[in-house]
């Protein structure tokens, strides 16, 4: 069932437990992308099974390895019991959902036209010799770019605040991501991981559905996922002890 058909079992302490398998005490490493993908999928699969079996699960990242034996794991459970328990209570009945909002690249092209400064610049360009006009044109492009950013930011902030009200927790992902093929020609203005109770997710779905209908907008809504983004430092380190 587990990675490379390893035997997956549980180590319990009080009313909590860890889902583990035995492996060497060094990080999993391979050049083979297919193999790596398979490992990750298996890791995911076991988490899904565990979620089905125990309902609330703290997903640790792939490659979280304890140096020692079952006793070491049990000791960790004992030491971190309070923290783990609090987290399990916080995650109960909840799942992670991914929300990405895209807008058409030309969505913000027209909006800044009303800006007086930009309007003036455009007039000026028409009346200048071509060398000077070139420089002013560059200046205009930079201004427009900035305006678009400000505008995209404003939209993103508004959406963020609206979404925040509908879910239990939100994590903002600021790393630049490639826009998937389906949304080519659009830019991502918001990338969120949301923690939401299964009963409340319909509200978020409805709200995002409305955003998706808006002219020039598109929303990607994925999940439910194991709440990876909401387990903090617990899932972070690789080989312990």
């Amino acid at each position, binding site marked *: 069932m587990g990675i490379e058909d390893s035997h997956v079992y549980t180590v319990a302490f009080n009313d909590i437990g860890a889902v583990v398998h035995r492996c060497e005490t060094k990080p999993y490493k391979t050049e083979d992308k297919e193999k790596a993908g398979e490992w990750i999928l298996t890791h995911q699969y076991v988490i899904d099974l565990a979620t089905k079996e125990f309902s609330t699960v703290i997903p640790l990242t792939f490659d979280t390895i304890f140096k020692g034996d079952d006793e070491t794991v049990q000791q960790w459970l004992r030491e971190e019991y309070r923290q783990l328990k609090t987290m399990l209570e916080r995650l109960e009945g909840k799942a992670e959902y991914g929300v990405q909002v895209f807008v058409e690249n030309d969505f913000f092209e027209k909006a800044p036209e009303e800006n007086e400064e930009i309007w003036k610049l455009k007039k000026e360009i028409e009346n200048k010799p071509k060398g*000077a006009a070139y*420089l002013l044109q560059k200046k205009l492009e930079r201004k427009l770019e900035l305006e678009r950013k400000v505008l995209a930011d404003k939209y993103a902030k508004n959406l963020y605040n609206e979404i925040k009200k509908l879910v239990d927790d939100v994590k903002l992902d600021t790393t630049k991501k490639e826009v998937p093929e389906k949304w080519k020609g659009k830019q991502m203005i918001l990338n969120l991981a949301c923690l939401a109770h299964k009963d409340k997710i319909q509200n978020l779905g409805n709200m995002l559905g409305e955003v998706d209908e808006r002219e020039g907008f598109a929303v990607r809504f994925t999940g439910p996922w194991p709440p990876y983004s909401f387990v903090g430092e617990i899932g972070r380190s690789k080989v312990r002890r």
Partner: protein
Amino acid sequence: MPIKIDEDNLKSGLLGLVVALVEIIQDVLEREAMRRMESGRLKDEEIDQLGKGLMELDAALEHIKKENNLDTIVRSVRADLDKLVEETIDIMANPERWEREMEKTEVRQ
């Protein structure tokens, strides 16, 4: 960070790298030109001269890119460089996080 150069066509790879670098210099020159234009210390003809020079540079670069089919490679080199700069700034801005990242890859005793 490895800069990806198309090994099948080293010439276009190398030329792409050079063009990407010149484009970055062009960007700096244009910023500086705009700064001077706005300072009010230049005569109108001087501004026009400056603009013309930069315009010619731009036209020449576009021509080289088109002639040699370099658009894609130039864009990818610039994206790589952008990423490198972003990461470097990030390391300087968040040393603690990077320390943690490093720890993650080491085996803790």
